[in-house]
């Protein structure tokens, strides 16, 4: 799991614009107080691009280069709106749900928050992708590959190739699947 020093670094260098205007220590102090007792783990991207090619995913769009178009009725499909930035297996297909890990896995203690658009109520929500870890990947069960807004690895808060099982208990760093809970509305 990332320690405070790494956390500081990320804060400091979050983006070029932000870095210049932010008092790192001040922010840390405030957030630290708020989440007292909680690990200071930045919730970085948990997505893993490349695991499943769009063309390979069971419910991928016909054109691997086509525009992402979300729907709001089939939770196990890759184009379900909450999965707008998932790159992994949907836990709902493997004994979990949109918000729960399958039995025997470990919930990662960190995640990446992204904003996804619900086409039904036309609102955007913050989704905190959390990995379920400690079991081998659920090959063939709803592997998805969505890369909306995905940035390179030197911008890890938006990057999508990182295995984010670092913080799971029992050193359970193998990847199984990902849940897509809503954690708030996005503006």
């Amino acid at each position: 799991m990332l320690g405070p020093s790494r956390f500081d670094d990320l804060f400091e260098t979050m983006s070029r614009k932000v870095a210049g205007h932010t008092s790192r220590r001040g922010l840390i102090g405030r957030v630290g107080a708020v989440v007292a007792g909680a690990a200071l783990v930045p919730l970085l991207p948990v997505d893993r691009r490349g695991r499943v090619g769009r063309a390979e995913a069971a419910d991928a769009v016909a054109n691997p280069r086509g525009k992402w178009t979300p729907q709001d009725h089939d939770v196990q499909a890759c184009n379900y709106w909450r999965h707008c930035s998932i790159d992994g297996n949907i836990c709902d297909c493997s004994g979990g749900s949109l918000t729960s890990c399958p039995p025997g896995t470990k919930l990662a203690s960190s995640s990446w928050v992204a904003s996804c658009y619900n086409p039904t109520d036309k609102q955007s929500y913050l989704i905190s992708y959390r990995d379920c870890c400690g079991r081998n990947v659920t090959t063939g069960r709803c592997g998805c590959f969505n890369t909306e807004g995905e940035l390179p690895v030197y911008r890890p808060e938006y990057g999508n190739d990182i295995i984010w099982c670092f913080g799971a208990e029992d050193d359970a760093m193998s990847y199984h699947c990902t849940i897509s809970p809503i954690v708030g509305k996005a503006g």
Partner: protein
Amino acid sequence: MTHAHGRSTGLPISRATMAGAATALALLLSATALAQPAGGGRIGGQSQPPAGQELPVDDTSVEQAPAPNARRIYVSDPAHFAVLTQLFTIDGDKGKLLGMSDTGFVPNTVVASDGSFFGTASTVWSRLGHGKRTDYIEILDARTHNPIIDIELPKDPRFLVGTYPMMTTLTPDNKSLLFYQFSPSPAVGLVSLTDKKLVKMMDVPDCYHIFPSDNNNFFMHCRDGSMLKVTFKADGSAERKKTQVFHKEDEYLYNTPAYSAKAGRIVWPTYTGKTFQVDVTGNEAKFMPAFEAFSDEEKAQGWAPGGWQVVAYHRESDRVFLLADQRAKWTHKSPSRFVFVFEGKTGKRLNKIDLGHETDSIAVSQDKTPQLYALSSAQKTLFIHDAESGKEVSKVDRLGHSPLVINTSDM
């Protein structure tokens, strides 16, 4: 601790600002506030909407499987003998995958007689396909699917063989596990799950399979066509006694007989459908009259068993289910499309079920209105049928690479 505990009403940046140009910092802040504590307590539970927070919030958790019942099914995928394999837990009532567990090379599955746990004996290497070899037994809780016992075995014993259900088994009290050793000499390993250790390798003659008739007795089947009774003590000291020869040399018994420990019944078909039954109640092997599943005319038409697990037995109704089809000789392990149902006591044929799909392995649940499970390796699918009508009621697909073995609880 749920994320609700980590949420702050005093976040220095309002959510309204999160969309737009400055999202990087905002997202990280938001995310940090939601972080789980390291080594936090129970995951899950209802989260309270934080004060002053009207936004929708999902709680997160790790599922537990429902309490196991007779319709709990475990499907093992040896994945064409890969060193990494998987075991799928399925709810027969709902036709739903409950979870999966990692297993190693040629995994042999056991399920507690009360359903409370399941486990496998399998093999791993320190570098995947090579390196230091470890044979081990891992027992998992049927609800949490977390490992509760892990026992490493000494190096020699385990029989690396296509997975047969009765080559690794539990005693009826679920306190001991028995596994077969092929090399360097035939033996049965007695493992105490209570003491979490291998007690002893018990030498046996050239016999195979392990059918525990009670907690201190098991039967095996020997090359010469007899059964062997082994009576053992807690320390692994054992006495052996052979029965009469009960089948001819050219009556080839399948590698995957059905066994109900609670009924004390072994049901064992041959390649041609002649079906032997052994009653081991009272720790004595009583050979019931064998019955022919197929008439001479049917045999001439090619009717014969075929598949991996070709036979299942329902205890309460005393019914034998036999997977069969019309086939060429020496295709006894190829899939079949039909299940023939017989009364165990008389061998009378009661039904012929057209499954409607190629099937490699069958099993039945032990409840009053049993389900018939039909596994297709090629389709990677477990089909769930009503055992009485034969009608398909549900199915679970995408079961790994080449799922082959079904285990249920004799509960």
